[in-house]
């Protein structure tokens, strides 16, 4: 069977102090992307990634540009090392911006400023303590959606990330999320874990962030992606640059349909996924969605070189 490669770009949660350090020792040019990002955003990004503290790295407005820069740095290194071009791309939440930069649809420096603002506005959209997120493990999607509908008498609560079968994240106002967790447990969920995130991302509570961000998004130019990107909102590709901006805004208050995105890739004949960014979160999810998919990583020298050997292009 012929191999078909797609790249996936991680979202928030994959960051860790000290990430990519070995790779940067092996490939000094990796740092140049972070230098570019530091210059654009006005702080020493590489220093923060390597020295922490983790709390600063976890600040949404820092995490988002850092993950974007990490993915772009790995993408550039992959290109320089003559790695194969993927045929499709998908990014999880913020990772969708990384995919758009790597596919040539958006300029890196534009995206850096947008995701910083995206992080800020998403954080500010709901006062601290009023929003919550939780992972529901081992319960069918429709039962989770029902539980959220029942709990919504207490406030907004929705299923926001369909990450893998039996792995759904819900989010909303704190009391409604608490109630939905109880209902999910009653309905047979194996576990329900509150997530250490301070805002209910991808719910309708994020609309104020969209209003603020739209000004910035409208001001930048989107090009047609040179590699098609599968979007979180509908799990399909969009070639028309005019429509990409609004999909990226909708994404903020719509669920991340990651299962649909991965299924779209498999249905298009993709056999192999490369996680272009720190961590292995998306590789784990992909295997749960479709065991047939092969996954590889890029975030340390051994995995990077093993992946290169598997997918050379010249």
């Amino acid at each position, binding site marked *: 069977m012929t191999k078909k490669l797609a790249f996936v770009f991680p979202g928030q949660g994959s960051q860790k102090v000290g990430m990519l350090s070995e790779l940067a020792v*092996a*490939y*000094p*040019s990796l740092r*140049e992307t972070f230098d570019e990002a530091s210059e654009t955003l006005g702080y020493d990004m590489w220093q923060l990634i390597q020295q922490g503290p983790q709390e600063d790295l976890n600040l949404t407005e820092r995490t988002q540009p850092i993950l974007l820069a990490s993915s772009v740095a790995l993408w*550039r*290194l992959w*290109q*320089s*090392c*003559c790695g*194969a*071009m993927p*045929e499709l791309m998908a990014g999880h939440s913020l990772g969708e911006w990384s995919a758009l930069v790597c596919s*040539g649809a958006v*300029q890196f420096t534009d995206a850096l400023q947008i995701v910083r603002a995206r992080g800020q506005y998403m954080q500010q959209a709901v006062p601290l303590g009023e929003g919550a997120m939780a992972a529901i493990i081992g319960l069918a999607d429709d039962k989770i959606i029902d539980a959220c509908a029942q709990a919504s008498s207490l406030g907004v609560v929705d299923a926001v990330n369909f990450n893998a079968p039996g792995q759904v994240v819900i989010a909303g106002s704190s009391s409604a999320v608490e109630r939905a967790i109880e209902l999910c447990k009653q309905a047979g969920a194996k576990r329900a874990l509150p997530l250490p995130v301070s805002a209910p991302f991808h719910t309708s509570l994020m609309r104020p962030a969209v209003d603020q961000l739209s000004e910035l998004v409208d001001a930048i130019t989107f*090009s*047609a*992606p*040179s*590699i098609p990107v599968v979007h979180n909102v509908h799990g399909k590709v969009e070639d028309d640059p005019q429509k990409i901006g609004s999909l990226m805004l909708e994404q903020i208050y719509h669920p991340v349909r990651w299962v649909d995105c991965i299924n779209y890739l498999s249905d298009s004949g993709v056999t192999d996924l490369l996680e272009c960014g720190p961590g292995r979160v998306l590789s784990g999810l992909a295997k749960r969605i479709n065991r047939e998919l092969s996954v590889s990583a890029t975030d340390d020298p051994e995995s*990077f*070189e093993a992946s*290169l050997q598997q997918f050379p*292009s*010249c």
Partner: protein
Amino acid sequence: MRLTISIDAMGGDLGPQIVVAALEEPLKNYPNLHLLLFGDHKLLTSLISSTLEASLAERVEICHSPTIVNSADKPSAVLRSYGDSSMAMAIKAVADGTADSCISGGNTGALMAIGMSTLGTLPNISRPAICAEIPTVNRNCLLLDLGANVDCSAQQLHQFATLGAEMATRIQKIKRPRVKLLNLGTESLKGNTLVKQTDDLLRTDSTLNYQGYIEGHGIFAGEADVVVCDGFSGNIALKVSEGVASLIAHRARQQLLGGWLFRLLAWMFKNRLSQFRQSIDPALHNGALLLGLKGTLIKSHGGADMSAFRAALEMAIYAAESMQGLESEN
């Protein structure tokens, strides 16, 4: 205006003596030319002093670089371990603005890798393409990609078309260069999926003067100013044409040496014959551009001899001059 070219003196298969021997004529022809020679300082110093007269040698600066990229090194290995190589340091001279263009006869994969990581790609360009001037019955035509990207998407071929057209405008001063897509026929039904997808894409780009398909022989008939193809087809097209050119030269030589009358004719027309040989000799069309980088990088054949390396150096001068002109226009 001063023109500075950085040279990876250790890159070619035939060693730095070929490189140094190729410098004399360009230095004489271009009084504004300065050269930065990267490689083993001791070796290069002795080669320069024995090859070039002092008045020319003073425009050559030797820059020591301790390591050499080997022809078999993988791009990833080169990025890991060869930061102080003659190739990396020569390219860096372009990145930091010391040189206007750089030339190397080293490993193409390494040149791409260092070029991309040191200079970076232009906005909207995923990966650079190798582009060369091909002689035709009219003026030269630009053919790309010649092997940097074996598998390409339609979007990449579209990028190459844009790069090629821009280069034809800038270097060859053609206002609306005719861009064509290499195919095995010119009818719309002909071709594989990639070619058809690319054709659709190119037709929608009104900034290009896209004129549809071209067949292999059409390149030499001068039917286009820019011919776009993937690196796999481009490399085969280039090498087949080089092979045919060598065959013609070989057969012509055989014929002319076949009898006293032919020998006499050959002697009488030796200037004409030499011009003919030069016009088709692939070695004298040496010097391919790596297009799509934020800087001018020229690839010389690994096996280039002195005259071939000189041709590549002239290409580097020519490209740098065109770019310089452009910068001053802006």
